[in-house]
């Protein structure tokens, strides 16, 4: 992740790059993007629906 991208994400979320720009935070951001990449590789069947906000189970 480039410095520009890192700062862009923070700015978009209303966070201060000056107060949060540390080596560890950047490393964490990169790790998160690795997990997102993993997620995007998981195959889905066409337009498989999402689990909506409440995961609910029918009570038997």
């Amino acid at each position, binding site marked *: 992740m480039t410095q520009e991208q890192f700062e862009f994400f923070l700015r978009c979320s209303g966070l201060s790059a000056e107060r949060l720009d540390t080596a560890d935070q950047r490393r*964490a*951001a990169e790790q*998160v993007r690795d997990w997102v990449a993993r997620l995007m590789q998981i195959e889905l069947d066409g337009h*498989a*629906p999402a*689990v909506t906000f*409440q995961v609910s189970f029918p009570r038997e």
Partner: protein
Amino acid sequence: MSEFPTLAQAASAIAAGRLTPSEVLEQCIGQTEQHDGALNAHITRLDESARAAALAAGKEIASGKYRGPLHGIPVGVKDIFDTAGVPTTSGSRVDEHRTPIRDAVLVRRLRDAGAILTGKLATYEFAFGGPSLDILSPLAKNPWDHTRVTGGSSSGSAVAVAAGMCLGALGSDTGGSIRIPAGYCGVAGLKPTYGRLPLQGVMPLAYSLDTAGPLAWTVQDCGLMFWALACSPVEEIARWESARKAGARGSRIGIIRHFIETDTNTAAESTEAVSAAAHALETSGAEVVEISLSPLRDYHACCLVIMLSETFEVHRANLANCPELYGESARERFVSGAFIQASEYVRANRVRRRLSQEMFDALRSCDALLTALNVSAAPPLAHARKLAILEGPTLTSPFNVSGLPTLAVNAGFFEDRLPVGVSLTGRAYGEAELLALGEIVETAVGQRAKRPCSVFGS
């Protein structure tokens, strides 16, 4: 049977008039007095109000008004559950001066069941950061070995139960926060079915993954607490009693071996605990089969993306206004949510449906799923990394993704000194049957007579 009573033993003695709530409470306060200075299980102690409540409970019971198994029982509460008039800090400087005016619903239910609140227990910051040394409260210590991690985030709940400071405790679990510390501290812990217990008055971590549940010395104790928390009807408790009597005969248990054999570097003590648990269930009449799910990393990716997105929404304003009030570990984890886009969060929820469905399918032919609880016994604190959750998959997150009830059960000790647990997952709303199976494992391999030497002596 150990000399220090379990919740069930104390309840039975109180009901029979052999012990008073005050006598049980004084035993627990004695443990706290003696060991909390070293173990840091409490953020706030409630000795005086607990003494008054125990006295009142004793009088009520003596007058013939016995409310049930939690009446007069000392319990602790993780400090993310609101308690009227008592500071509730979530272990963070951000909420250092926060005192709610009403109880969380589950705290109210504990009080209504007659339980005695002994204190507010240590938590990783906002149930997520940690282990940390730079937050509001000192780090809770593992009573089996102070140099080892307790696991989190319900660290104080697990420590307080293991050390006999209370007979049961309330914790929360979004990615493993009840089960991981239960395993490392050698107690039992139940993450109930998602949505089964109300979360009003509990500091959220991730709305669609959060659950609350009990930690206690035994599986049976967890059951007694859970029924009170769930306000369960007598029919369900009767179903539990009948499942306990039936044993595992006719049950089918699916072992998820690839989680521990290929998807992680699980240590021998954890894989051996799974084999021992499987053997115990087989001996009790169950059929054990191997089942295969998606790779553990898929579950973890799904859980992390959802968790980080939702928790970022909870903390965004404070991260913008006062990031310095957070400990480093929590801040870095929370801010990580800023690096996930909305479309990726939606994708994670679609993946969640798929992954959950395969677990539901597995539970059509199996009554429970068995795997390791943690990849090893409690590792040294010196090896703890503040971003560990981002580095590799945990064995607990798949069951938050699916929302299915999952039980942490002690399955013995590594080198005879560090507890090792196993994980059992049941069908949605199948807590009665799950608890009964857990008890079989615990009775066969759980060594409940062994308590931490640093607290109870050898």
